[in-house]
């Protein structure tokens, strides 16, 4: 059923794209419409094979993986791109997009496809992604005029630090580039998705690359859809080069290039920071442990229902035991964890025993593994769950299979060697009152 919908939606998207191209009156499109159309069609084949899991069947950035990723995958229908060499508000050039697809976006789930896909495949899939937004039919990219690069120097880095202060970069990135004393480091982008201010001491996470020219371009062009502005109106070209050289100078070595003592110091620092900021540590653990994967309802295209992250209600059939809806983990007092004590939450996470004393199966809720979490990490998870805004979603109790069904299922499992899959059902089994 999922499969069918998937295909038909993709087909509609492609059809719409082709119609869009046929109607487009741009000179460069009109010149070779057949070529563009066939390239777009080829690109769609590449897209369907490699891109839908994150970017979704219709390119809206809402594939099955999307809701769990930070930053979220690009919504191609918006025509807004962060990594560009074009003026603020302009669409990117083809080369910008080819670069992002080829090299990937560091610090995100987007891999570099160079070496996996051929160069022509990459060009085709870029053409397809462009066809999803009408902007590429009606606008031309305005490439920024690059001044001569300023090589890094000790004086330039000092000047760059002054630019960093003048432009108030510390408000989001902190006085040290790591968020220290920042006003805020967590934001929402134009699609209301969560976003972190980049840690400037970790250049391997800079989405568009960490060479001075890459960093300079982010200041020059801004990052569309995010709070990161362009500084073209408030800083000179030389200022932005100095700032780029300063930001590059903030970079530290990654753990894979560090010596023994540095590794020990880094791990100790990370542990201390985790302890000092349990909510942040807990948020990161909840993300990496994948709690939201089961404790949020999805639609038939595996898109998380909006506003329902961690609100439970996803139905799992675990043969031969029965049907189990996942619990509401938000801080809602009536339907979520709001009335659970810390110890009750921790007992569920580490021993699989609910507030009312019911024991959970040892899978798929992996409480046995979670029991190996350190006490600090458990406290961090509880602290984070307490901070999740309450969503009212009353989840029904599980339905255990009847005795004969259970025994027959066990017979098939133990004697006939049947290995039944866990089945996920789309939709929310709970009764939701929305966000409180």
């Amino acid at each position, binding site marked *: 059923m999922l499969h*069918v919908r998937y295909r038909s939606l993709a087909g509609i998207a492609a059809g719409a794209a082709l119609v869009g191209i046929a109607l487009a009156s741009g000179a460069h499109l009109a010149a070779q419409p057949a070529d563009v159309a066939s390239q777009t069609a080829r690109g769609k084949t590449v897209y369907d094979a490699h891109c839908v899991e994150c970017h979704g069947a219709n390119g809206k950035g809402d594939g099955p993986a999307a809701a769990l990723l930070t930053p979220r995958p690009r919504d191609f229908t918006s025509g807004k791109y962060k990594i560009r060499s074009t003026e603020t508000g302009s669409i990117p050039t083809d080369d910008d997009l080819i670069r992002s697809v080829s090299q990937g976006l560091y610090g995100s789930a987007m*891999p570099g496809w160079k070496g996996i896909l051929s160069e022509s495949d990459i060009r085709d899939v870029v053409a397809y992604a462009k066809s999803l937004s009408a902007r590429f039919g009606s606008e031309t990219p305005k490439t920024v005029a690059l001044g001569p690069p300023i090589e890094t120097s000790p004086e330039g880095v000092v000047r760059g630090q002054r630019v960093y202060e003048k432009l108030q970069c510390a408000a989001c990135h902190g006085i040290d580039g790591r968020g220290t004393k920042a006003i805020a480091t967590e934001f929402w982008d134009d699609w209301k998705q969560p976003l972190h201010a980049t840690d400037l001491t970790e250049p391997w996470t800079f989405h568009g690359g960490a060479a001075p020219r890459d960093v300079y371009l982010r200041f020059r062009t801004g990052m569309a859809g995010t709070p990161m502005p362009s500084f073209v109106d408030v800083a000179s070209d030389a200022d932005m080069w100095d700032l780029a050289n300063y930001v590059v100078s903030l970079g530290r070595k990654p753990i*894979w290039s560090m010596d023994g003592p540095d590794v020990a110091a880094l791990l100790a620092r990370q542990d201390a920071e985790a302890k000092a900021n349990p909510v942040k540590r807990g948020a990161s653990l909840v993300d*990496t442990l994948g709690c939201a994967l089961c404790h949020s309802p999805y639609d038939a295209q595996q898109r998380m229902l909006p506003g329902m992250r961690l609100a439970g209600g996803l139905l799992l059939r675990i043969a031969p035991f029965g049907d189990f809806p996942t619990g509401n983990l938000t801080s809602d007092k009536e339907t979520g964890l709001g009335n659970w004590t810390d110890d009750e939450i921790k007992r569920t996470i580490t021993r699989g025993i609910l507030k009312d004393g019911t024991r959970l199966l040892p899978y798929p809720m992996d409480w046995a593994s979670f029991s190996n979490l350190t006490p600090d990490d458990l406290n961090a998870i509880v602290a984070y769950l307490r901070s999740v805004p309450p969503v009212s979603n009353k989840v029904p109790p599980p339905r255990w299979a009847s005795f004969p069904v259970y*025994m027959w299922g066990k017979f098939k499992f133990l004697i006939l060697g049947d290995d039944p899959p866990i089945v996920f059902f789309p939709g929310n089994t709970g009764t939701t009152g929305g966000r409180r």
Partner: protein
Amino acid sequence: MKRLLKRAAIVVLVLAACGFLAFLYFIPPFFITPPEQFGKDMGEAAPSVADIRDARERAIAERGRYLVVTHGCEGCHATNGSQGPDLTKYLAGGGLKAQTANGTYVSRNLTPDKDTGLARRTDEEVKRVLRSGTFPDGHVVPMTAMPWASFSNWTEEDRYAVVVYLRHLKPVRHQTPEPVPGNALTIPGAFDQDYAAKDYGVGAATVK
């Protein structure tokens, strides 16, 4: 004498039947085993890093071990023995078959075996699966088979630590089947909306 034998046979048969039913009912003994035992078994199954001589390598592998154990890799990447998962073949794969809309996946061998395990893959290739779900041939493993989007939220340094630890595991030669492309329609019950709507009123609820 004969009657006695006959009675004894009946008793034995009844006992055997009860034993068989009890076996069906209680095995695997999920609710008889104390909950602490599950976590203890899993924690102890993961090889220690104490035998790594280099202090730097050991510190990083220890971080990786913590992530591997707490994130439950062995939940899927275990190898089935005759009595449930064979934890001595830690992370040698094969223990889970996931049927998804895009095909059938069997959990892979994560030990550093040179023919069947991760010794065939570079660090970057392993990290790319954990970051993007993308295999060297370009296919993307569906979220319902391997929840890689969760592991994508690890920092790059944590992901590196996981790879360092996986490289330290005891190599186990165990060829696991390649993915079989498939179709959701062939999976009975999968994404059964009619069932969900009928029994649970799924879909009727609205989200504000």
